[in-house]
């Protein structure tokens, strides 16, 4: 019997927690394409240059394939390729970065032609360390573009937070069928 595969894509700037989020859901440690970081603007030792991949076997011949896009802007040509035909897109943002709203705008621009049809959720990380911008400011940015997606504060180290994002994506998909 052919396996039914569903694809969920995690996207966002470097350090937003894409690899961690995938690890929270994947049955096996995610396949990563991390290399030593040479970007002085990033305070992390390793960074993803290809894509991250994990898989959750659902049984009954179904699985969810979890992809993480490379965060750095120079790999933006890969973002849409990876997200095409996905069941859902989760955009993760890091509120401690210099301009999280600008990061968000970058991803909204990059996925502009997919967003009207894709099921999407937005997770704002590290809101505890940096209160501003508020979660509502991210929602407002969506509203200004005529879009409405779930925008939730998350800690991607908490599986239930990652699951909540995925659930809101599944709900949108369910409502469209």
């Amino acid at each position, binding site marked *: 019997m052919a396996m039914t595969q569903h694809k969920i894509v995690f996207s966002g700037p470097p350090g937003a927690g894409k690899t961690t989020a995938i690890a929270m859901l994947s049955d096996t440690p995610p396949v990563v394409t991390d290399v030593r970081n040479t970007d002085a603007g990033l305070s992390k030792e390793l960074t993803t240059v290809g894509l991250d991949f994990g898989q959750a076997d659902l049984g009954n011949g179904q699985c969810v394939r979890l992809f993480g896009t490379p965060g750095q802007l120079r790999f933006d040509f890969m973002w849409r390729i990876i997200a095409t035909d996905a069941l859902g897109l989760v955009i993760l943002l890091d509120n401690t970065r210099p301009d999280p709203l600008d990061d968000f705008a970058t991803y909204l621009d990059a996925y502009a032609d997919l967003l009207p049809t894709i099921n999407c959720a937005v997770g704002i990380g590290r809101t505890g*360390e940096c209160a501003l911008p508020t979660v509502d400011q991210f929602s407002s940015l969506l509203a200004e573009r005529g879009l409405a997606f779930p925008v939730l504060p998350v800690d991607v180290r908490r599986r239930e937070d990652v699951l909540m994002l995925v659930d809101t994506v599944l709900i949108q998909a369910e409502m469209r069928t």
Partner: protein
Amino acid sequence: MSRDAATAPQVKRELRLHLQNLNDNDLAKVNAFLRIGGERLQCDWTVVFDGEFEVLMRGSDERGDVQGTAGGPAATVCLADAGTGQHDAVEALARPLQYEALLDALSALEQRIASTPALRAVPRAFPPDARFRLLRWPSADLLQGDRDRQRLASFLLTRLVGLDELARLSHVGKPQCMEFLVLLATTGTLDIAAADAVPATVTARAEPQANHQEMDAHHFASIRHGLGLTWR
């Protein structure tokens, strides 16, 4: 503009600012800044400590049980020590409170309140068989980090949904669904359509991607079960 209109005295709208959990220093500053800077604002701001209000300013992360106009505050301003995680308010101000920051925040709230139907009266009853759809993602204040509310809002994002369907799909009780719908209606984020209205898509939300059109409720139940989505 008629001459009468042009010469008519400008009556400022009153907005009530409910202060909650502010220390004496913050209280004194808010009152002083409003007294000094009141002319800069378009509305007459009145500080209140009980009764109805349009804006809540709170000085800690503790949630009070205060109720604002139409069952909930139109907006919340958090006053937080610099570096602390007050992330769920529409506006956040850092201590020590600064004159310009407070006036700018209140001015922005005036614009928002004026440009949105945020102070609508609570509907006594929705039309029979009404269907609902979110116009935008609700504020964090309204969601209160509550999983059920987050899920209900997600069900309302994509298309018009009736109360029965919302309760059935979400597995949240009808009274809780109705309570949430009423709250959304008071903030002007809910599109309410009669039962015979042509189903509308959410702004900029088009047809689903072709490869997912054949999925049915069983598929989604299977995915949720497989991932361990167990809260509903």
